[in-house]
């Protein structure tokens, strides 16, 4: 069963088209990274999925229509839409009481357990906590909810590296299992690529790349080409080329590994490099393309 299924999803703000016919399908049990430049439509797409914004086109999340059934959907879906959206006046104990009071799938003991591993005190108000602690608190609340879909939109923006690392570690170790689906939108590609099972690139309101990580690993290869091999390498039609110390790095789609090994060191490209390559090949965005 698909966790999220969208067909022809469109959303415009006046003359600005934020989503331009998005088709996507996210299966259950996946961890999807939604990656795109600023203003590409990531947040709009997530807001539509979460029932925070109306849209045109077809969209089903866990077989529900998010816009008309947001409150029922939220029994099975959790989200951290941004850092620091917890109400600043609230005490930690207020938040625990409130979520326990309204959420049928919230396990208070579990949340208390997560909080016990932090330095957050029950009586503190959110405004007294550091940004990193607010994120820890929000994550503790969210992970104690037995949800089927968790949506994270830039959940670690502005946090220091320790908190960022800890965030994804606890998400993977203490939360994720085969029955849950996680969708993460972020700029900070490097720190999430090892946790993803799928990756999607979004650009100007369209999905321009949609692969599982296995596909990425089997299809895309990056070769550090020695200068004397440059012509031979170019004949194999790399999708992208960039300069590095000691030669150029060429990125190939679906070229045989043996063949490439003759040209230089072969490795799987990082998502960031793949992103630059794919975006550079988008029409109208030639400035990022190979030079």
């Amino acid at each position, binding site marked *: 069963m698909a966790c999220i299924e969208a067909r022809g999803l469109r959303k415009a703000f006046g003359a600005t088209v934020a989503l331009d016919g998005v088709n996507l399908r996210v299966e259950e049990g996946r961890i999807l990274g939604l990656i795109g430049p600023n203003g590409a439509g990531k947040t709009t797409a997530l807001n539509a999925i979460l029932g925070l914004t109306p849209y045109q086109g077809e969209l089903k999340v866990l077989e529900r229509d998010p816009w008309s059934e947001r409150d029922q959907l939220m029994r099975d879906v959790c989200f951290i*839409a941004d850092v620091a959206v917890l109400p600043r006046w609230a005490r930690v104990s207020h938040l625990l009481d409130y979520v326990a009071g309204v959420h049928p799938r919230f396990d208070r003991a579990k949340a208390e357990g997560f909080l016990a591993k932090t330095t957050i005190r029950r009586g503190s108000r959110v405004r007294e906590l550091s940004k990193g602690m607010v994120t820890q608190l929000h994550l503790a609340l969210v992970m104690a909810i037995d949800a089927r879909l968790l949506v994270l939109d830039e959940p670690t923006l502005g946090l220091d590296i320790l908190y960022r690392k800890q965030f994804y570690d606890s998400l993977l170790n203490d939360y994720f299992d*085969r029955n849950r689906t996680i969708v993460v939108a972020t700029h900070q590609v490097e720190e999430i690529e090892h946790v993803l099972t799928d990756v999607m690139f979004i650009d100007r309101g369209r999905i321009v790349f949609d692969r599982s990580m296995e596909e990425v690993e089997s299809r895309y290869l990056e070769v550090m080409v020695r200068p004397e091999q440059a012509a031979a390498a170019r004949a194999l039609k790399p999708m992208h080329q960039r300069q590095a110390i000691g030669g150029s790095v060429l990125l190939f789609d679906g070229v045989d590994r043996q063949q490439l090994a003759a040209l230089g060191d072969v490795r799987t490209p990082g998502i960031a490099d793949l992103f630059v390559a794919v975006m550079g090949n988008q029409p109208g965005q030639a400035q990022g393309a190979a030079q």
Partner: protein
Amino acid sequence: MNTQTNAIPESPRVSQVTAPAAIPATRRMYWSVQRELWESRSIYIAPLAVAALTLVGHLIATIGRAMSVTNLPQRGAILEEHYSFAEFAIMGTTFVVAVFYCLDALHGERRDRSILFWKSLPVSDLTTVLSKAAIPLVVLPLLTFAITVLTQLIMLLMSAAVLLGSGLSAATLWTQLSLPQAWLMLLYHLVTVHALWYAPIFGWLLLVSAWARRAPVLWAAVPLFAIALVEKIAFNTTHFAAMLGNRMGGGAEAVMAPGSSPMDPMTHLTPGHFLSSAGLWIGLAMAAVFLAAAVRLRRYQGPI
């Protein structure tokens, strides 16, 4: 529900489907109102502070002014003043608190972005808006009543203690004050005027707070002035202003039967007259429209 026939041995999905998925609507409402009390502590702190000040004033008056008057009826009259004063002071305070609460209720959560957190929980916009409307319409009137009754009882005990043995007993005061009757009047006034008659005012303020991107106070007042002004210039009439005045003034003729004697407070209790006044029902209908619009707006609104 679980009609899938593929034989996946894992069972968690089943447990999730059959997990207690329902929390009664009343419980969600209870916690939502509780949340408002956590956030806006002025709801109870302001009337309690006014009550405390009234008590301090009363104590000083009892010890100082009333003791120096030897004439017993006069002494009683001095002490009696404070009871209705306490009532008006607490009522006025809670009304002001209600106005400012409503103006901020649906604006504050967008300003501090916490709306994104509230919307991540399975609570509908309807429940949220109704829980916020319940503060001025239910919580504050009841709180006003409770605090006033408590304050007046403490005042009575204070007087009794201070005046002990001076010939003016608490029992005499109690009879003179006829507090139970006054309390009944107060409760009637709070329910009819503060909850029902003012409902469209609070509904309007909540709507503005859901709509305005900034300065909800201005947006609440300016359109009303504008309508009154245009009416005055275009038709040289003041119907709209008069209607507003009547609404703010508590709709005296709707709440109290015309010609009822002010000497006998019990004749003010004319629920039949009140319930049959058109103004009440028009007001309640407007309140319902304003609240429905606020619910709809909240659905579309995000952080500002």
